[in-house]
């Protein structure tokens, strides 16, 4: 623990990452109190102040119906973070279970499970999510589902590879010799040894889930207005370039900031937990 802290705090980049993510999480959680215009998260119109360049009190300017972009970004963070949590909470258990079973039991089960995983992996992730979203009704829930569907195979593949190497380790053999059940070996013996890798991947993925989800909503396939969403803000604002640049640039940078933060932390974790890429 002391060593972890040392590594984390020694590197200014990890400190930066912690700070960025911390600020974003706080701002999202307390958006109602932090945002200068908390009611601008929803359907509000202010035609006296629409399409304004950044100026006080509109830090990042206003959108086409006069809503404060800064406030909307804070609320959009809330959606992004929720999405990240939900997607990982669904995708990781599924992927880990599939990977464990395929890697440990082997044989025909392994073949079938890993071929299914391959099918999912051989459609470019964005295309898979997009085609699902296009066919379903675009909404936050469906967006989460689509991203989950494209995400679990990566965990299946990771845990499968880990399990295959752990399977030959002494402690697994020992557990098998004393007659532990398969379930016990998989979840009690092998899984704990995969945790560092899974944890690191999750941290980095948190940022990427946000990134992919914003790509979907950029294409009009994710969170629906008037709920603020970073991707759709960029897409909507892109029509007004270069005159109303603030409509796109700030939400775009907002994505960058949060994903960057998670990546920095993920990098540090990788070092602390000694996980290879």
């Amino acid at each position, binding site marked *: 623990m002391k060593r972890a802290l040392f590594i984390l705090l020694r590197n200014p980049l990890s400190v930066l990452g912690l700070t960025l993510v911390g600020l974003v999480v706080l701002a999202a959680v307390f958006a109602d109190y932090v945002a200068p215009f908390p009611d601008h998260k929803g*359907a509000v*119109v202010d035609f006296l102040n629409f399409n304004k360049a950044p100026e006080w009190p509109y830090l990042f300017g206003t959108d*086409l*119906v006069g809503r404060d972009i800064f406030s909307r970004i804070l609320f959009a963070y809330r959606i992004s973070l929720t999405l990240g949590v939900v997607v990982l909470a669904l995708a990781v258990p599924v992927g880990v279970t599939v990977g464990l079973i395929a890697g440990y039991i082997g044989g025909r089960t392994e073949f079938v499970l890993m071929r299914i995983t391959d099918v999912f992996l051989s459609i470019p992730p964005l295309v898979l999510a997009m085609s699902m979203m296009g066919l379903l009704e*675009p909404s936050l829930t469906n967006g989460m589902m689509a991203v989950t569907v494209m995400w679990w195979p990566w965990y299946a593949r990771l845990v499968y590879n880990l399990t295959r190497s752990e399977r030959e380790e002494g402690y697994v053999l020992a557990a098998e010799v004393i007659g532990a059940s398969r379930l016990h070996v998989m979840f009690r013996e092998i899984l704990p040894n995969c945790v560092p890798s899974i944890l690191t991947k999750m941290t980095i993925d948190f940022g990427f889930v946000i990134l992919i989800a914003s790509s979907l909503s950029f294409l009009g396939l994710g969170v629906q207005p*008037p709920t603020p969403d970073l991707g759709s803000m960029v897409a909507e604002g*892109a*029509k007004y370039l270069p*005159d*109303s640049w603030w409509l796109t640039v700030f939400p775009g940078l907002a994505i960058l900031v949060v994903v960057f933060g998670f990546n920095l932390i993920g990098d540090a974790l990788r070092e602390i937990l000694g996980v290879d890429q």
Partner: protein
Amino acid sequence: MNMPSRLLAASLLASAALVGVASAETTLRLDETPIGELDPAKATDYADSILMFNVYDTLVIPKQGEAGYQPFLAESWTQDGNSFTFKLRPDVKFQSGNALTADDVVFSFDRMMAIKSGFSFLFDNVEKAEAVDASTVKFTTKFPYAPFVAALVRLPIVDKKLVMEHLGDGEGEMKDWGQGWLNLHTAGSGAYSVVSHDPQAETVMAKNPGYFLGVPAVAPDKVRLRYGLEAATVRTLISRGEHDISSQWLPPEVLKSLSKDGFKLLTESGTAQLYIKLNTAKPPFDDQECRLAIVNAFDYSTGIKMVAVTDTVSQGAPSTGAIPVGGMGADPDAPAFKQDLEAAKAHLAKCKYKPEDMNVELSWIGEVPLEERFALLLQANLNQIGVKSEIKKVPWTLFTEQVTKPENTPNVSQVFVDTMDGDTDTLLYSMYHSSAGGTWMSPEYLKDAEVDSLLDKGRASASEAERSEIYKALDKRLIALAPTIYAQNQRAVFAASDKVSVPALEDPAKAFRVAAFGFTFRLMEMHP
């Protein structure tokens, strides 16, 4: 000007161009939303219409600067009860060199009806078309049907001989009716021929030297119609001088920036209106009082300011009723709608539903981002009278699906409707006749005997004056029933460079009352 002298003038102009300086070829560059549908039997959108009006010709065309239709491929026509007889011009040749005959007209009609797509619904009440002789065509309608002549603006005449040479796979004598081929090729007689066509990217057109009216030298030699350019792209291309006319789909802010940079604005009005439709088949808008409440609550003037481009030009104009201002039956003296919160509250008080129990779904079509602003505005207005509402973005395909059942149809939907052929019947019948419920045009599900009878009378009468009176009465009835918020007349605004003048879109006296007809390239002038 009568035909022969006009022809003469045209040929004089043409020869003047020949002896004149061999000036550089002029190219007109404009854009539209994808895709560009080249097959005239499938065309529906604005881009398709531009292609249709330039590559193909029709029996009649809208009159310039006034309502009504003038002969075009047809020299004249007569109506006798259910039958319409057209006499064709003898001097028209297709771009292939084939002569245009009555057979081609019949083929074009049959093809349209067989494919059952595009504008074919305008001809649902037509029984048949027959060639009386090589230059005479007779159409028979199922009942006296006045809007038929207007509908002919949407029946481009296709070169039968050429199409028959290119039939693809299919069943029956006509196989695929040449659909496969006409997707990428043309068989028209129009002033422009297609040089290349990519439905998603670009259509390039060039003057047809054999056009029966001749094409003036000042008209663009070449036209590049591009599809799917982003607003920001168009904005920059125009300001760099690499684009000439924008589409009307630019957001007002972008048009504003271009106008500020000194580019001119072209407008097309009187063809379309924004209808905010209330579902009369489910609560709360099955109660007329509730409908009147929301009609009075809507802030019409902010709605127009919201889409204003400059102080004088806006994408919206005040509405006076169900018929766009200037259309047949629109009352020129009718007052424009205004927000009246007192009246709204009074109507709301009489409504059988309590405001606190309502949660009105305000939908907007995802493909039309401008509608989001109207939804937000309406939501703010409903708040003013204490009605809660919820905004929903609906993609177009989902919307057309939803409206097929009244219970799935949102309380409030927004649709821009265009007269298509300029006739009031085309506009109103499919919106308000009780038999028409369940399409994107009729999410009101209006069922009213008086409206039905007026609509039926209107299409049966052969007299322009009588029709006008009938529609005036209908308009009054539709205002009283309030199935719709007649939010604003839509004005299409295009930004354009000084390199081109488009009289039909710049001078109201030269405007056509059919959407996209202003984009008849042969009537444009290039200033290189």
